[in-house]
């Protein structure tokens, strides 16, 4: 058996299994909570938060060592990172609300300054006795190699709790993410919901530090949500599709990284999610590029066919090569451009349709119906047979 297969089927040892499950839960929580951030158009706020965790990690280490404890205690480091990420988030909000600077500037400022200060703290820690072995750099890009059982358990439990929180909070968060005003009119506390959403994202960021790292955790929040958007127009399914994509990426990425040496966990998880994104961008039936292209070509063909038929009916010559090819391939004209019998029928029908629409638009002031006239929609799909019979009578009267 290849190591990859072993890893995917959870046969690579207890720790690797626990990490894979933890990464999967983390991915589900990140995908689901990230979808609210993306819908609320605040995707990059989470990037500021993620970078703002670094000084917290450093300070927590220094404090824990100063108190005589083990500086590498994961729970302590994560608590520190949560506090400084929270402060970073508050500063972003404060700068956006209280100064003339935009949210993007606030995000960039918090991100770079907190990160820079964190790097300063890391260099301080390196000069402390025993600090060189702290391995705090692993929080930048994540590292699951040599993870302790307790750490893996912390991540798995944290991921599970976050998923549960998403499930409990899904209603108010969906409402606020889609339509803030409507949510407020229903009595939803928008400010509180926003805060809970941010709290959830903060929790995911902190839990993800050890596996994905603070530079790339934002990808796990954004990429699945953006990918899921290609597959659905419904908010309820968006959350869980996004969660599934995140979970799949987390699981597959951590398994691959466990199976091969030199394959860092965080980047592989992110690249796996990115591959799913590219596939969805191209091939998702609803909003994918290929689907849109096919729909566009079909629309073009309908326009050419219609215009060609109307030209036939008026016995005008057709010069457009696309129209000629289209009509020929449908057997509506002969090679020399003269209409076949089927072509004459189709042309007559097209002209009748135009006449009927003409009458319909003068008789019906209802733009909801007549507004659908685009020269392509068959009138039978808008009006009832009775109404169309009525139009035909009017046409007949007009001609006599």
């Amino acid at each position, binding site marked *: 058996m290849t190591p990859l297969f072993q890893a995917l089927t959870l046969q690579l040892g207890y720790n690797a299994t626990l990490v894979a499950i933890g990464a999967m839960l983390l991915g589900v929580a990140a995908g689901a909570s990230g979808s609210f951030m993306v819908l609320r*158009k605040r995707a990059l706020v989470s990037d500021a938060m993620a970078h703002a965790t670094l000084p917290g990690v450093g300070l927590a280490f220094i404090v824990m060592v100063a108190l005589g404890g083990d500086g590498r205690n994961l729970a302590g480091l994560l608590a520190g990172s949560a506090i400084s990420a929270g402060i970073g988030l508050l500063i972003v909000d404060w700068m956006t609300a209280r100064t003339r600077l935009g949210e993007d500037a606030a995000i960039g400022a918090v991100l770079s300054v907190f990160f820079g200060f964190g790097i300063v703290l890391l260099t301080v820690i390196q000069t402390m006795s025993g600090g060189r072995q702290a391995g705090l750099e692993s929080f930048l890009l994540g590292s699951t190699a040599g993870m302790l059982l307790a750490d893996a358990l912390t991540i798995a439990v944290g991921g599970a709790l976050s998923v549960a929180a998403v499930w409990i909070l899904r209603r108010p968060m969906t409402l606020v993410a889609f339509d803030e005003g409507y949510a407020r009119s229903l009595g939803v506390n928008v400010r509180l919901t926003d805060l809970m959403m941010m709290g959830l994202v903060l929790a995911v960021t902190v839990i993800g530090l050890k596996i994905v790292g603070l530079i*790339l955790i934002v990808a796990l929040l954004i990429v699945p949500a953006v990918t899921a958007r290609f597959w659905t127009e419904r908010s309820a399914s968006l959350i869980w599709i996004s969660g599934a994509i995140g979970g799949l990426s987390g699981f597959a990425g951590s398994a691959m990284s466990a199976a091969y040496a*030199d394959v860092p966990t965080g*980047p592989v998880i992110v690249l796996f999610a990115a591959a799913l994104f590219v596939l969805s961008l191209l091939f998702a039936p609803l909003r994918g590029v290929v689907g849109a292209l096919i729909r566009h070509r079909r629309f073009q063909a309908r326009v050419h066919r219609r215009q060609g038929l109307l030209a036939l009916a008026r016995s005008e010559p057709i010069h457009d090569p696309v129209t000629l090819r289209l009509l020929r391939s449908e057997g509506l004209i002969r090679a020399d451009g003269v209409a076949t019998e089927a072509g004459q029928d189709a042309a007559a029908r097209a002209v009748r349709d135009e006449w009927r629409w003409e009458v319909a638009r003068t008789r019906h002031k209802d733009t909801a119906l007549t507004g659908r006239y685009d020269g392509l929609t068959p009138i039978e799909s808008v009006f009832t047979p009775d109404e169309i019979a009525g139009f035909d009578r009017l046409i007949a009267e007009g001609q006599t």
Partner: protein
Amino acid sequence: MGAEFVQLSLTPILIGVLASIACALPGNFLLMRRQALIGDAISHVVLPGIVLAFLVSGTIAAVPMLLGAGAAAVIAVALIEAIKRLGRIEAGAAMGVVFTTLFAGGVLMLERTDTSGVHLDVEHALMGSLESLIWLEADGWASLTDPAALAGLPPELGRIAIACLIVVVLTWLFWRPLVLTTFDEGFARTIGLPVAAIGFGLVVAAAVAAVAAFDAVGSIIVIAMFICPPAAARLMTDRFGVQVAWSIAFATLSAIVGYVFAGYGPLWFGLYDAVSAAGMIATVSGVILALACLFAPRRRRLGEGRGSA
């Protein structure tokens, strides 16, 4: 003090100042266009660019690195635009998708490549090595006129000086169209300015600045300098020209104070080793921005009185 200062501190400070100015100048325009995070995105995608350049060229010589990083920055900007249009995705999310993916790709390539023989790793890319850009050949201020000693200047100084000059000249040349497209795109279009091309040119200029600065000082300074000095300057004045001048002053101040704090600050606290200069410069720029947010004369939006805060 003099000789030691010239040898150990003069060139890093100069490089820091030039890099900061090169980033802060285009940062002003990006800030006003609400594209401040482009700098963030560019500095992330520089990593895959230099790794690819290393894989292709097999060296870490400056020219291939700069070309690779510049190409990566331009490709990233094009990708962001493409994804935004093709997928109908909001700009922030599209940016987040592109730069994290490219960065992840860069890290993966780096880990899978044997770079043990060369100085190329993620931490170096993030933090730079400003402290190591010393001028060993110098033995005092007199060395500034000594050709033999000048030949020993770190090559990063020359490169960042050229990049800074390019950015300054471009800003000066295209000042009017840049300002017009930034503040009134509709009007700029009606008088026939190529709005899209100017926007793209600005991003390319920012990429040039970012890549050259990155080479010398790492990506933390790049992101911080794109945003913090222009943002602080924005809170000082309502006039854009004055804002640009303030931002250059703030960038210079951050670089000098940051470097001095990183080198000598720990001594004042009884520690012996210097801390990261890049990190400290970013921190100082953040402190300046924080002070500006609290006290600057034009910190509030128009129409918002002192009492309403």
